[in-house]
């Protein structure tokens, strides 16, 4: 079975225990690790240990969930491990490589755990599963503050030049193929600066040359737009 090679201790460090420079360094490490991880998950389609075809996946997950509902710990563990890899690949495809993906995966797993009694084996697994993931992803972005606060603390001691480097790096991870690339540039910038790069609304406003209120509005609209795009995909 495929195991994620992303070092989660590195993610923890990135979430606030190191300096900005360290964070940048670890960001690169995470990026590299995730590329390796996702190549295994997404691109090895013939590999049955990685990500088999949708139909058989759905049927297997359904039967695993049924046994989990009856209390089978091993089946449940296997199910969550497989789903975690799928969620990670799903998010990475839409957001590019971002340091918050692992947090988002774990939030989704917790939601699946809490909602496991609502799964009906007579219905397909995937709509149930992806509805939860989609909502958790949007929720996570909307309420993402702790990471922002930690970054803000570190940024107080750093020069604007370093912030610029960080911003540029974050932008580099967003290519036109992922979900963020589909947002209008002004929304994408606001979302990237506040939710991904960890700037406060005031700092983002300064960088974008707009008011703080306008940043909030753009972030709000960006999240709504993301929701619409994801719902349209589904």
């Amino acid at each position: 079975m495929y195991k994620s090679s992303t070092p989660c201790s590195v993610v923890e460090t990135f979430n606030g225990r190191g300096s900005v420079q360290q964070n940048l360094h670890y960001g690169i490490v995470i990026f590299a690790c995730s590329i390796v991880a996702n190549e295994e998950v997404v691109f090895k389609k013939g590999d049955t240990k990685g990500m088999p075809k949708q139909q058989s996946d759905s049927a297997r997950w359904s039967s695993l969930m049924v046994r989990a509902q009856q209390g089978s710990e091993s089946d449940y563990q296997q199910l969550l491990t497989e789903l975690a890899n799928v969620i990670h690949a799903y998010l990475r495809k839409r957001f590019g490589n971002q340091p918050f993906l692992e947090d988002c995966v774990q939030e989704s797993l917790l939601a699946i755990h809490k909602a496991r009694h609502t799964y009906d084996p007579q219905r397909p697994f995937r709509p149930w599963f992806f509805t939860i993931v989609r909502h958790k992803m949007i929720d996570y972005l909307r309420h993402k503050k702790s990471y922002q606060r930690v970054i803000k603390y570190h940024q107080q001691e750093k020069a604007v030049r370093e912030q610029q480097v960080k911003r540029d790096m974050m932008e580099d991870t967003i290519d036109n193929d992922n979900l963020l690339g589909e947002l209008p540039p002004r929304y994408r910038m606001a979302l990237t600066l506040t939710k991904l790069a960890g700037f406060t609304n005031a700092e983002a406003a300064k960088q974008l040359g707009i008011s703080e209120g306008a940043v909030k509005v753009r972030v709000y609209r960006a999240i709504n737009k993301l929701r619409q795009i994801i719902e349209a995909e589904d």
Partner: protein
Amino acid sequence: MNNRESYIAELSQNLVPVKRMPNVNLLGVIWFTVSVIYVIAQIHFYDPIRPGAFSQTISSPRFLFESLLGIVAICWVGLQTFRDAVPGLQKHSFMIGGYLLIAIWLSQYVIGLISPALEPSTLGKRDFCQYETMIYSLPPICLGWFLIRRFYPLEPVRTAASISLASGMIPALYMQFACMYDPSHILMFHIAPGLLMVLVGVAITWYWQPDGSK
């Protein structure tokens, strides 16, 4: 063992078997039926209804249509609320359909301001119809949320608003039989208090969340 693996192991540890959820559509219909019976009983218990109100459904087809449309719209919204509490079950079009029906139903009263379905009169007027509407809708809200919170509403505010809307509209609809018929009175003293209950319902459900956290 990395962070994710330990997290999954923790979630899987001491896994408690869960009961299969009941049929959510059936539960929605039961909620609607119980709520309607409760509201009708309460209204009849408090004061007699307008004399000849039901015979007016025969004499005025538009009044009948207005009433039936209201029943269907409220039942639909109630049902969609229960479906909304199960991930992946609710279709967007189904949800839009419910709100659209409510809007069409309410628009009948707005049209009634110019061309009423029945001749407006003060016959059967109840002194506290607005308060009755609000108070009678509280038990359906609480019952509905008590049932819904057992599922997993991903959009709790939307779900709470929908169940409160349906609950508020049940007494508001029956008031057109129990109280005087005048579209302006209906809009101001029956519909508006019913709509106000959406805010009250959201507040109630906010403090009564499934996991006890706000």
